[in-house]
């Protein structure tokens, strides 16, 4: 049974904290937003598509990512806001891919809706680009078996879940979330790994995501 298998290399748990860094760059129109979206560091794209997950981690009814929020509530373009909110971020394995998806949604919208280019924000309501600086650190816990992994997972903070499930995949470009990778390659349990990979962290709270992973592991072990 995979849960009895002892991995040769343990899963080492990390966590991360984030500090927002200001760029001084701002946009008042969709064209300016688009122009800067193509130029700003990936850390900006990452910040504006993920900071809402961390700021509102206790809710089921998540607000939109920063681009969708600004376009909807400041520019008043509900259709584009909806399109930006609907980008399926979970399918991407790098920030670069997210940037391309956002740019292409806005470019297509500008072609289809010429009036969109006339929209602008009020003074003081511009979109300000912010970068995300991540501080990553080990939390001195490691697991060799699925049972050990589950016990530790139940105890760790949502920051730890966030790091391994989202940040490591996108910013460190680990291809899949760290949990699934370890379960698949070190324990040889592709089925459980796949179930965890399919979870969507963008439509539930981090606490909810943690509970979902715990449930999958419990079911597997029992």
């Amino acid at each position, binding site marked *: 049974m995979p849960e009895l298998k002892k991995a040769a290399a343990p899963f080492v748990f990390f*966590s991360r*904290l984030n*500090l*927002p*860094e*200001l*760029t*001084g*760059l*701002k946009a008042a129109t969709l064209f300016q937003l688009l122009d800067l979206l193509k130029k700003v*560091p990936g*850390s900006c794209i990452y910040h504006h598509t993920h900071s809402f997950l*961390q*700021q*509102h*981690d*206790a*809710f089921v*009814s998540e*607000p939109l990512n920063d681009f969708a*929020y600004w376009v909807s*509530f400041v520019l008043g373009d509900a259709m584009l806001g909806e399109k930006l909110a609907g980008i399926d971020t979970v399918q991407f394995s790098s920030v670069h891919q997210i940037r391309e998806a956002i740019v292409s949604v806005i470019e297509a919208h500008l072609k289809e809706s010429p009036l969109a280019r006339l929209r602008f924000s*009020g003074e*003081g*309501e*511009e979109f*300000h680009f*912010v*970068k*995300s*600086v*991540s*501080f*990553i*650190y080990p939390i001195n816990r490691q697991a060799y078996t699925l049972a050990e992994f589950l016990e530790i997972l139940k105890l760790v*903070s949502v*920051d730890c879940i966030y790091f391994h499930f989202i940040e490591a995949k996108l*910013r*460190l470009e680990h291809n899949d979330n760290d949990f699934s990778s370890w379960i698949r390659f070190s324990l040889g349990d592709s089925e459980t790994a796949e179930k965890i990979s399919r979870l969507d962290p963008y439509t539930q709270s981090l606490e909810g995501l943690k509970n979902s992973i715990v449930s999958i592991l419990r079911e597997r072990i029992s």
Partner: protein
Amino acid sequence: MSELKDYVPVVGQAVVDDLRLLAERLRGKRVQHINSTAVGGGVAEILSRMVPLLKEIGVDTRWDVIKGGEQFFEVTKKFHNALHGRPEEISSADFEIFRENGRKNAREMDTGSDIVFIHDPQPIMLVEKKSGNKWIWRCHIDVSNPSRRVWDFLMDFIPRYDSAVFSAPSFSRRLPLRQFLISPSIDPLSDKNRELPEETINQVLDKYAIPRNKPIITQISRFDRLKDPLGVIEAYRLVRKHKDCRLVLAGGTASDDPEGLAVLEEVKEMARDDPDIHILLMKQNDIEINALQRGSTVILQKSLKEGFGLTVTEALWKGKPVVASGVGGIPLQIKHRYSGLLCHSVDGAAFALKQLLGNPDYAAELGANGRQHVRNNFLLTTHLRNYLLLFLSLYNNGDIVRI
């Protein structure tokens, strides 16, 4: 004074553990905060709570205050207003008074700590003493639309710092140094924010003769034109056409501030003899402010200009539905229709107030979201954590830092 363990029931053990872990990474570093006043004002209030906590987790921290005479502080008040975009007559002599005072403090103050953390413009010139150590300039005020002359003067010093810190993205601009976004915070254990028994709330409302027989809209702020108290009364009158309610305008004004007293008179004149408008000129009393906020149905903050807007933070922390102008740091705290309602005019404020008074369930949901948002982002422990990360960033470049 509260200890770190007292915050565990509020923020959780993991948050406190993070603080201790970060402090370990800073072992051996000496940190020195410098501002212009030991008491009064938001900066001193935060430092008085922050510094003991930094010491408790093992960060060698001291707090020094620069000296300055009456002339110097008159100039810095002009600077403050000008940086907020208000017209001010500032002479060459004023700039020289600022420079001379800066030089005097530089001669007298030891700034040899590993990290020197300068708060606001008053002590900004001390950076001329920088020698091999790390310097941070923390700007607490709204500089989104500053007087060009004063900002250019400050730019003689700002680039010499290693990092700058602002309270809202709209306060930042292109600068030749790293700049970070760190919000101020409230202390959930302070008298202004701690839980209060219903009995205390009732006593305070009774003291000020505010019956609870109809919904209460409250704005807490000093009597200042930038807080738009006349606009608040206009909005209340629009609401009153359809919803019976009371308005409480509560705050202080310095006795030596002629403009504050003039604004108070204008407010009284506009309120005339409406028995449902309660204008409270209060001395500093944190428990009473706490009680007024908790006893209110909706909190309003209709500022025309705002730094961060800690009165909004306080209201959200108490789970109150809030209507506030989308200025300064308020949009960081209120996501429209999620953790409160943003407005941009008297009519907008009135419409939002009517929505909340007419839909108590919706109002309660916004209030609950707002409280959680403050818990995650704007409590003293988060502020402390961000300062520790800021200190670590001084020794680590890059967007991903392994510590």
